[in-house]
């Protein structure tokens, strides 16, 4: 210690040192450990250490039947639990060549978009909090509560719903569902203006996010940074648009693209996506057709032997499901391509040469969910 104190200042600045950011750090939103190599305040490089919340979900899926493993996919990316469920159901239905009723498609699409909105709300809350605005956290969670109430009334759970099942959904919509969704959209359209007034135009926020964490389109493609993070670099990668599933082919919505490539663009993409999601819900909510909420399924679901792949747009990017079936009622191998894992891989590249305080902003703008990385 004494030697370091006696060194001339210029010598100290040349010294490179490592600090651990996490596994318990408020801005990593979970148990993510980043070993950051610093020179002064500059980030030279960083190394993510994963595995603190690894539960072996892929292996656990191999012992569960297809209806059973759906509840495990809730726990991968818990903020888009509906979307993960949807992916499994789409895969099973594709493999068995089952056509689900029209009502199911409507319900699933509306639920997916609600999941996207609440995920972005929580992201906005924590983004504000990471940059020092605790007010954002309270406002975001307050508005998110309305969506959680909608879910609790229909599915019975606030957070990990397990609402989709192969062939349809577990229960029919609650009679109050449409009324509550209308009330939510009416309220949230007013509240999202507050979001913009507090954070989007704020001078401190702009200076901490504009020009920070530049991710070029080429890098986004080569690292596989999908979702809003990739679209902030101008990469058109929205699966809802490119390979529509459920009702996405029949509703009008814009793919939000920004070309700024920085943290601010990724922020603006998500803010705009909340408007687009509300737009999609408004088109569907009044036209839900009557009918069954589930197709007739066999008691034991066996996928024909072969390989299947299904991808959906989760709130964080492309969620891919790869299943190898040997004809049994359990999958032989199940692989999840989770968006946060790919998005984390680019963190080292885009935070080099930035200040350590910018690293917090960059990490927040990638919207990492740690169980999604480790699964």
């Amino acid at each position, binding site marked *: 210690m004494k030697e370091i104190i006696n060194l001339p200042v210029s010598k100290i600045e040349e010294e490179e040192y490592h600090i651990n950011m996490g596994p318990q750090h408020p801005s990593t939103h979970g148990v993510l450990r980043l070993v950051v190599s610093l020179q002064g305040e500059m980030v030279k490089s960083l190394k993510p250490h994963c595995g603190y919340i690894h539960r072996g979900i892929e292996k656990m899926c191999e012992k569960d039947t297809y*209806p059973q493993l759906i509840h495990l996919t809730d726990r991968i990316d818990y903020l888009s639990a509906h979307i993960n469920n949807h992916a499994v159901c789409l895969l099973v239905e594709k493999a068995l060549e089952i056509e689900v009723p029209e009502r199911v498609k409507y319900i699933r699409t509306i639920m997916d978009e609600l999941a996207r909105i609440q995920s972005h709300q929580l992201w906005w809350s924590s983004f504000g909090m990471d940059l020092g605005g605790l007010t954002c956290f309270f406002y975001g969670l307050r508005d998110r509560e309305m969506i959680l*109430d909608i879910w609790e*009334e229909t*599915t019975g759970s606030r957070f990990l719903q*397990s609402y989709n099942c192969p062939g349809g959904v577990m229960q029919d919509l*609650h009679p109050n569902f449409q009324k509550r969704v209308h009330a939510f959209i009416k309220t949230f359209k007013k509240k999202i203006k507050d979001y913009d*007034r507090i954070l989007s135009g704020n*001078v401190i926020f702009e200076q901490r996010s504009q020009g920070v964490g530049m991710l070029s389109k080429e890098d986004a493609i080569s690292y596989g940074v999908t979702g809003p993070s990739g679209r902030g670099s101008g990469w058109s990668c929205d699966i809802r648009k490119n390979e529509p599933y459920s009702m996405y082919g029949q509703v009008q919505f814009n793919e939000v693209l920004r070309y700024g490539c920085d943290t601010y663009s990724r922020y603006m993409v998500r803010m705009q996506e909340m408007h687009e999601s509300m737009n999609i819900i408004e088109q569907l909510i009044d036209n839900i057709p009557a009918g069954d909420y589930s197709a007739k399924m066999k008691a034991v679901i066996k996928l024909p032997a072969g390989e299947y792949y299904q991808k959906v747009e989760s709130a964080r990017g492309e969620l891919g499901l790869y299943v190898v079936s040997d004809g049994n009622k359990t999958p032989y191998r199940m692989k999840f391509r989770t968006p946060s894992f790919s998005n984390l891989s680019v963190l080292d590249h885009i935070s080099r040469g930035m200040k350590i305080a910018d690293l917090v902003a960059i990490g927040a703008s990638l919207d990492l969910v740690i169980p999604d990385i480790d699964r």
Partner: protein
Amino acid sequence: MNSFLKYFTDIFHGVKSLLTGMSVTGRYFFSPGQIVTQQYPENRKTLQMFERFKGEVIMLHDSNNQHSCNGCGICENNCPNGSIEVIAARVPGEDGKPKRIIDRHIYHLGMCTFCGLCVKNCPSNALGYGQKFEHAVFDRARLTKVLNQPGSSIIKGVE
């Protein structure tokens, strides 16, 4: 001159954006009607959960202390993590043949993930969800529950 002007316009816009943000928080400060906080432990008596709320899995009993579970074990087979154990017994039936009835329906709340497959797949709709959500206990063993109430019997005609 230009950079000089920009310096002051930047300051002006900065102060303006901060005041805009503070006006939002100030508005909430002066309108207490918009407060949404629930005073949780105090409002326990009036707190109503939604009717579909998944608090815990229960066996539905009617006023005569009768349930409709015949101990088929479909819930046990459907459970992904072994939260349910159905222990059946055989008793002589009215026609002299041994009849399968339920002895104990054991439910491990500590292992349950609330996927809802047991309730959905029960052929006689014997299971349902309870509204209780305060499950914290000091001893893990208390999370293991027997769902069929003592002295209960099966509703006639369900078997």
